[in-house]
Each structure stands twice: as C-alpha cells, then as structure tokens.
C-alpha cells in the first residue's frame, strides 16, 4: 500500500482591520447619543453633497429650516421612522414586571408608520415617493422634492450614497477557501457534538480520501461568526445560582474550548462574539477574553475578534457581523430576503443604521465606526435562518459576494467561500450524520457550485457516501 504523500495546507496573508471597533481607548463621560448621530450626518452629508451635483444638477441644497414652499430642492438629513408598534421604554413602567418576557411581535411595522427627515436645524415629515417599509431610523439620505402647503416635504426622488469604492482584487494563481460557521450554540439543546466534530474533522483533513483532503488543505481560515455558546437562561436572569450549579455555567465554554483547540492546532481561526456569547451587549462587541479559551488561546492561530469583524486575506477584503444588525433591520423594515437588507446597508454605507435607536451601541463622541468607507469583497452575516448568497455589482465595477450564514446547530451547514481570484464561487458543505448516526457512516454532500453571476447552478460531485470507517 503506497504511503500517502503528506499534504500541506495553503497559507494566506492575513491582516486584521478591527482597530476601529476597539473601545479600549474610549472614556465614558456621561455623553449621550447625539454625538454619534452628528458625526454620522456630517460624514454622510459630505459624501452626498459630492454626489448630488452629478445626479441632480441645478437643484439647490437647503437645510430643513431653509425650506421654501413649492420650491424644488434637495434636503440631506437623517431619517427617523415613527413606528406605532415600536416598543417604548415607558411601557415597562406601565405594565407589571413579570419573569416571563412579554410576547413581542417579530416585526414592528404598521401601515401608519411614516418617515421624518431631521438635520441640525429641524425636522420635516416626509410624504411621496419614499417607500417607508424599506427605510429605518438612522439612515442618512438626500431627498429631492418640495415643501407642500401642509408643511410636509413631498419626495420626488431618494438619493442614497450607493456602494463605496472598492480596491481592485489582485489576480491569484491558487484556490484558497475560507470556512464560515455561526450559531454553534455549544451547550444548548440543539447542539449536536457529532456534527461539530465532523466539521472539525473535515476542516482539519481527518475525513475523507485524497480528494476531500486536498479540498481541506486549501482551507486557509475558519471564521466563527458568533453565538458559539449557549448559556442556560436560568443562570443569567438575575436569580441566585446555587453553588452546585455554579460550576455548570462555564461548561459550554469549556466544551467549546476543547473542540476549538483541535481546530486551531490545524489552521487559523477567527472567533467573533454574538448576541448569546459572554461579551458586551452593545455594538461593537469586543473580542471574547482569552481566559475563556484556556486551551485554544495558547495557539497563535487563534484570534479573538470583535463584532463587526473586518479583515483582509491576500488582498480580499472581508467584512461581517454576527447578525445583530440585519436582525434589527428585519424587525423594523421589510425586504424580500436577508440579502436585500445586507445590500441596503452597503448602499447606505452604514453597517448598523438602527444603532443606537433600537440596537445597543457605544456612545462615541467623535466617530461612527459602522460607516463603511470601502466596499468589501465579501460581506457576511451570521446566525441567519438559511444559507443564501448573491453577487452584488455596483456602478463602479464593485463586486461584493453577500453571504448569509445559517445557524450551525439548526442546519448543520457551514459555508466555504472560495476566496481567491474568483470570489463569486461559493460552495456549501453540509455535514449531517447518516441514518445510523455513527461517525463511521456519514454523508458528505457538496451541494452547489455557483458560477459567475447569471449561470445556472450545477452539482459538483453529486452526492458522495462514505461507508468506510474514518481513520484518524
């Protein structure tokens, strides 16, 4: 029997661009959120003022206070959406406190919602050709229209900033993959350790024959996009934890650390916090502390990253979050799918426009770190219901691969992104235990291989069944 040739994993030049999301240097002085809105408006207004002359020449740009009735003009300001069903902090004082959370609707939209535009001088209610369902509070836009006799602003056209400029991709010779996974939920009822172990084995190259292993050797990075642990709510709802239970609080994290150690021993891993992870609540979430990962943090391949997370691999720009920004958009606006929300955040050039209105956010005084200044090549969102992907093209030849990563504990699927020369190719590997649920009988499905935009997806290898025992 010939000795198999050892395979080497590919390497990629990585640089972490998370400095803008670090809160270490910030000092809280009791400030409120007005500053973050001011910097956002200021920054976006400069952008929009530069764009308006090319789109709508000859129209004057005014402030809200400078509006004249019946005169066609351009207004730039922050949108505020007045929503009837939006939960108000004052409701807590009206209702009785109970241990069970009040049932909230998933989506707070109502036909009576209306938009208001606000700048430093004042605010004006909007009417006309602006789709209320598509916008949320906190978006800065330019509006073309005129003031009506009723005091409203009748919108004729909406101008968004559009996709930011993108740096060109350098063409590369080799194929390299990045694996995205989110919603591992170690410690929850839906967590299946077998599935996670299968994923680890596949990525580290312990699974499959030479074909599979050569694919695995092309994986250069794993990005864990949030919600890796699930701590039982009864430990964190404010009630005292019995001493016998105290050691159980950290069990999910320890279990995650053990499994992560296998992964980091083999390739670089980026760990992002999510809404259920032991990190701060408000965005930007700071990296999980290395004391939580006593095993994995000893490896230099382990990086604990912030949420949102921005990095560069071989000149390909990646940007993504653990899902809070898109989930919040889903609560306050409407779109045909999650990818459309992602597209909108890029067109608005802001990752989380609803922060700080309905999404927790640090009250910065002199910057807004969620502004998207350069267009990423890959934009990912974790903890979504299903896997979806699309290639978004911009007017200045920008190409963004939008990826919605499903929750691993529910779907058993991780996303493998072909990061090199053709960022428009995306494979999904679904690891599910077979009918007898043993590790020696598992199915590895390579589902779709999306060609360049516009092509019909075709099966790559078809289904492959492995019935031999897996040698480790």
């Amino acid at each position, binding site marked *: 029997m010939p000795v198999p040739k050892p395979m080497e994993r590919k390497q990629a030049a990585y640089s972490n661009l998370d400095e803008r999301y670090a809160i270490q240097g910030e000092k809280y*002085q*009791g*400030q409120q959120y*007005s*500053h973050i809105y001011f*910097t956002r408006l*200021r920054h976006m207004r400069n952008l929009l003022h530069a764009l308006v002359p090319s789109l709508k020449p000859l129209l004057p740009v005014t402030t809200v206070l400078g509006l004249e009735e019946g005169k066609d003009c351009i207004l730039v300001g922050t949108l505020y959406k007045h929503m009837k069903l939006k939960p108000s902090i004052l409701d807590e004082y009206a209702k009785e406190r109970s241990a069970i959370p009040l049932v909230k609707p998933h989506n707070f939209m109502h036909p009576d919602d209306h938009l208001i535009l606000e700048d430093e001088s004042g605010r004006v209610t909007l009417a006309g050709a602006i789709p209320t369902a598509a916008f949320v509070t906190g978006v800065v836009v330019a509006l073309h229209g005129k003031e009506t006799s009723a005091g409203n602003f009748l919108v004729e056209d909406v101008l968004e900033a559009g996709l930011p400029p993108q740096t060109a991709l350098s063409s590369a010779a080799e194929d390299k993959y990045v694996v995205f996974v989110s919603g591992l939920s170690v410690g929850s009822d839906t967590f299946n350790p077998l599935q996670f172990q299968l994923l680890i084995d596949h990525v580290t190259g312990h699974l499959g024959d030479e074909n599979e292993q050569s694919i695995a050797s092309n994986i250069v990075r794993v990005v864990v996009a949030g919600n890796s642990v699930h701590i039982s709510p009864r430990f964190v709802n404010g009630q005292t934890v019995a001493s016998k239970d105290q050691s159980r609080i950290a069990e999910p994290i320890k279990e995650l650390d053990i499994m992560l150690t296998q992964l980091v021993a083999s390739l670089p891993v980026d760990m992002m916090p999510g809404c259920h992870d032991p990190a701060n609540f408000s965005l930007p979430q700071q990296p999980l502390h290395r004391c939580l990962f006593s095993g994995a943090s000893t490896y230099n391949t382990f990086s604990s990253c912030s949420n949102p997370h921005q990095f560069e691999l071989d000149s390909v720009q990646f940007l993504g979050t653990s899902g809070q920004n898109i989930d919040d958009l889903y609560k306050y606006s409407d779109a045909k799918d999650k990818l459309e929300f992602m597209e909108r955040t890029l067109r608005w050039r802001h990752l989380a426009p609803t922060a700080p209105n309905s999404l927790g956010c640090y009250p910065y005084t002199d910057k807004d770190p969620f502004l998207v200044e350069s267009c990423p090549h890959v934009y990912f969102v974790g903890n979504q219901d299903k896997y979806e992907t699309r290639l978004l093209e911009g007017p200045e030849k920008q190409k963004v691969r939008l990826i919605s990563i499903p929750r691993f504990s529910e779907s058993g699927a991780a996303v493998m992104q072909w990061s090199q020369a053709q960022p428009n190719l995306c494979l999904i590997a679904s690891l599910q235990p077979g009918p007898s649920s043993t590790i020696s009988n598992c199915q590895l499905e390579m589902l779709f291989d999306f060609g360049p935009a516009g092509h019909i997806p075709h099966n790559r290898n078809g289904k492959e069944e492995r019935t031999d025992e897996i040698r480790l």
Partner: protein
Amino acid sequence: MSSGGVKDFYRLKKKGGVTKAASSSKKKTQQYTGGASVGAPDTAQTSALVSHGSWDLKDDFGDQEEQLRQFDMDMKFGPCIGVTRLQRWERASAMGLQPPAHLRDLLLHAPSTKNRGDGSPSVECLWEGKV
C-alpha cells in the same frame, strides 16, 4: 433649605454675600457624576441658578466665557453636552469645520473647575452640571 423663600433667589447682592445657601448648594452640585441631573427636589430651583458653586448672574462672566458659550451654542459644531469644550473643538477641527483658533488657546489656558474664580472661562460646556 426653603427657609429663605423667594428672597434668596432675587438677592441684589452678588455672590460672596450669601454664604449659607451657597455652601449647601455647592455640596449638592458636587454630588453629580458627569451630566446627570442635580440635586434633591426642594433645592432643584436653587441649583438651576447656581453654576459651579456660585450664583450665575447674567453679567458675571467675562467676554472670553461669552465667546466660549457662543461656541457651545453653535449648531454647526454639533452637540455640546457630554464632551469638554476642548474635545469638541478638536472634533470640529478634525472634521474640517474650522472652529475659531483663538478659542483653543483660551481653553488650554483655562483654569480647572476647582479654583475657578469669577467670570473666567470654563473647560466644560455651558450646560455641565445643570442638565
């Protein structure tokens, strides 16, 4: 505290003449942390007129403080509450709004809140301690 009644508010004598009221309201103003609201309910009205432990009568601050207050109130440079005047100046300058340069010198040479005398420019914004 309400012993003086209305007479305490409309005293014609400038600060320094009233010792009892000033010292207790000074104690109240020093209890706050960062821009949070001040004082117990029955002294709320007195606190509104007091600034940094002394009566804040209209003509009692210098021209420099007046300029700085105008800078605070100018909407072009953004909200003023919650940041020190120098931080706001630096922010405005970084954004290219060109705030008046002489104000920066004023702020750098302003005495700290503890030993401020009368009418000298303050490091904090106009509303500090009052809202």
